[in-house]
C-alpha cells in the first residue's frame, strides 16, 4: 500500500469543511463554491497533462455536465442525485468517443482540435432553443434542504474527487501515464496499450470536469453557453501553471489564489483585466514553475546555504 498521505488529506478536508461551515452569507458561499469548482477543473486539466496533452475540450465537458444538470432539473424535474450525475455520465460517453478518435494525434494538434470541439459545442448550445439558446437555461435549483449547505456539499464532492485523482495518479495506472508522457515508444515496447491508457486518463479527467459543470449549474442556478467558452480551459491551465504543474496541490493552490484574485478584481470593473492578466504575465515571468517551484527553490536555498544556485528563480531563454 502506497502512502497516500491520508491524514494530511483528512486535515485539509476538515479545514475546508470548517471554513464552509463558519462563513455564512451569499457572497461567502458563492466565493467558496467558485474556488472549489475551479480547483476541480484545474485538477482535471492537470490530470490530462499527466500524459503530456493539453485538453481544451475540458470547457466543452464542463458545459455538457452543466447542461445535463440543467436539462434534468429545469426541463424534466428529475430528482437531484439523478440530475447531478446525468451530465457527467454523458461526458464519459462523449469523452471516450472523442478521445478514441483524437488521442492518436499529439501536441499542438490535439490542443487545437480540443479548442475547435469546445467552440463547436458552445455554439451548438446557442442553436438549441429547447435549452434556452443564447440566453441560457434558468431555474436549476438544488433541493430545499441543501440550500444553505451547498458550499459544504460542493466542498465534500470536490475533495472526494481530488483525492480520487490523487490516488489514481499514485497508483500503477498513474505511473504508466507518466511513462507514456516521458516516452510513448518505450511504454509501447513493454506491452502497454498506449491509446487505451490515454483514453482512460482522458475519460477520468473529463468526468471530473463534467461533475464540476454539474455542480456549477446547481450553484449558479442559471447557465448560458457563454459560460463554457475556451476561457474555462484557459483559466484552468493558468491555475495549474501558476500553482505548479508538478503536483495536484499546485493546481489546487493556483485555483484558490487566482479565483480569489479574480473575484477581488471584479470589484474594479474594467480593471479586472489589468489585475487578472497582469497576475498571469508576472507569474509566468517570475516563477515559471509556479508556487510549488518557488517553494521548492526557497527550501533548497535555505537548507543548503553553501551552494546557492538559484537556477529556477529566473526564466531562461531557450537557446
Amino acid at each position, binding site marked *: 500500500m502506497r502512502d497516500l498521505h491520508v491524514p494530511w488529506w483528512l486535515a485539509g478536508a476538515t479545514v475546508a469543511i470548517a471554513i464552509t461551515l463558519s462563513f455564512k452569507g451569499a457572497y461567502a458561499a458563492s466565493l467558496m463554491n467558485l474556488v472549489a469548482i475551479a480547483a476541480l477543473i484545474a485538477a482535471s486539466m492537470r490530470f490530462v497533462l499527466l500524459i503530456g496533452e*493539453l485538453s481544451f475540450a475540458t470547457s466543452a465537458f464542463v458545459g455538457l455536465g452543466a447542461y445535463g444538470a440543467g436539462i434534468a432539473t429545469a426541463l424534466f424535474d428529475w430528482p437531484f442525485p439523478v440530475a447531478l450525475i446525468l451530465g457527467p455520465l454523458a461526458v464519459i460517453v462523449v469523452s471516450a468517443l472523442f478521445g478514441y*478518435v*483524437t488521442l*492518436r*494525434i499529439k*501536441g*499542438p*494538434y490535439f*490542443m*487545437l*482540435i480540443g*479548442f*475547435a*470541439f469546445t*467552440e*463547436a459545442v458552445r*455554439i*451548438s448550445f*446557442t*442553436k438549441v432553443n429547447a435549452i434556452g439558446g443564447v440566453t441560457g437555461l434558468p431555474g436549476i435549483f438544488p433541493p430545499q434542504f441543501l440550500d444553505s449547505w451547498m458550499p459544504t456539499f460542493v466542498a465534500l464532492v470536490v475533495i472526494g474527487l481530488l483525492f480520487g485523482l490523487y490516488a489514481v495518479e499514485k497508483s500503477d495506472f498513474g505511473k504508466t501515464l507518466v511513462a507514456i508522457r516521458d516516452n510513448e515508444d518505450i511504454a509501447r515496447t513493454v506491452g502497454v496499450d498506449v491509446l487505451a491508457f490515454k483514453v482512460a486518463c482522458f475519460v477520468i479527467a473529463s468526468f471530473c470536469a463534467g461533475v464540476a459543470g454539474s455542480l456549477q449549474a446547481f450553484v449558479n442556478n442559471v447557465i448560458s453557453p457563454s459560460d463554457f467558452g475556451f476561457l474555462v480551459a*484557459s483559466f484552468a*491551465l*493558468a491555475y495549474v*501553471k*501558476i500553482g505548479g504543474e508538478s503536483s495536484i496541490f499546485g493546481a489546487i493552490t493556483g485555483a484558490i489564489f487566482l479565483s480569489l484574485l479574480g473575484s477581488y478584481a471584479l470589484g474594479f470593473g*474594467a*480593471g*479586472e*483585466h*489589468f489585475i*487578472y*492578466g*497582469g*497576475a*498571469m*504575465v508576472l*507569474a*509566468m*515571468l517570475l516563477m*515559471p514553475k509556479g508556487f510549488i517551484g518557488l517553494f521548492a527553490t526557497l527550501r533548497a536555498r535555505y537548507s543548503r546555504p553553501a551552494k546557492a544556485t538559484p537556477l529556477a528563480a529566473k*526564466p*531562461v*531563454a*531557450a*537557446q
Partner: protein
Amino acid sequence: MQTALQLLLTTLQIGAVYILFSLGLTLIFGIMRVVNFVHGHFFALSALLVSVFMPPVISAGFSVPLAYVLAGSAAIAGSLALALAVYKFGLSYFQRDMEGAFIFTMGMAILLDGVFLWLFGGSVRPVPQIITGNTSILGASVSVQRLALCLIAALVTVLLYWALGATKLGKALRAVAADHEAAMLQGIPYNRIALTGFLLAAFLAAFAGVLIAPVSVVSPVMGTDYLMKTFVAIIVGGLGSVRGAIVGALFVGSIEAVGGYYADASTATIAVFVLVILVLLIRPKGLLGHA
C-alpha cells in the same frame, strides 16, 4: 453561375484577411514553436490606431487616401512597437515552450484587452470610406474598396511567398523552422532570426488591420474572432506550413461565405469547427503539414 461567382468573390474577400493573419501565426509557430494569442491584438491595435489618426490628419488638410496611407503607416509602427515589447519582455523567454507561451500570451491578451478598453473605449469606431463605388465582374457586384483590399492582400502574400523562397532572410527563416539547432550550427543567428520572424508576423497582422479598418467595424475586441478562425485555418493547412496557411485561410473563408449565404453566420461557424475535426481525423497533421 452568378451565385457561384458571388460566393467566390466573398470567399476571396474574407479569405484575404485570414491569409495575412494566418501567415503570421504559422511563421511564429514554425520558428518559435509557440501559438501566439496576442496576435489578434496586433491586428486590433493597428485598426484602432487608423481610426484614431485619420480624423485629425484629414482635418489638417490631407486628402482621404493620403490620410489613410499616413495613418496606416503610423498604425503599423504602433503595432510593431507593441510586438517588440511583447517579444523582448516576455515571449523570448518562452520559445519552444508551448504551454508556458500559451499562458503568457493569454495573460498578455487579457491585459491588453483591459488596456485597449481603457485607451479606446468599448464603442465601435467609424473609419471613413477610402474608395467609394461598386463595380461588377462578370455580373457579380463587388465594392471597389473590398476589391482593392483583396488585391493588396494577394500582392503581399505573393511577395512574402517569394521572399521566403528566394531571399537570404527567407531561407534563414525556413532553415530555423525546419531544425533550429542545425540552423544554428550553420551560423544562422537564431535569436535575431526569431525576432525578425516575429516582427514580420506582427507586421502582417498590423497590415491586415489597416486593410480591414475601412470595411469593417473597428472595436478593441475585434481581434479575437479573427484569431479563432485563423487557428482553424492553420490547423487545416498544417502548422508551420506557408502554403498550408493560404489553403486553410481560403478553406475557412469559403465555408463562411457558403454557410453564410445558405444558412446563417453561427451555423457557418459550427460547420467550420466540425469540418476541421473531420480534416484532422483524415490528415492528422493538416492538409499540407509534415512537421
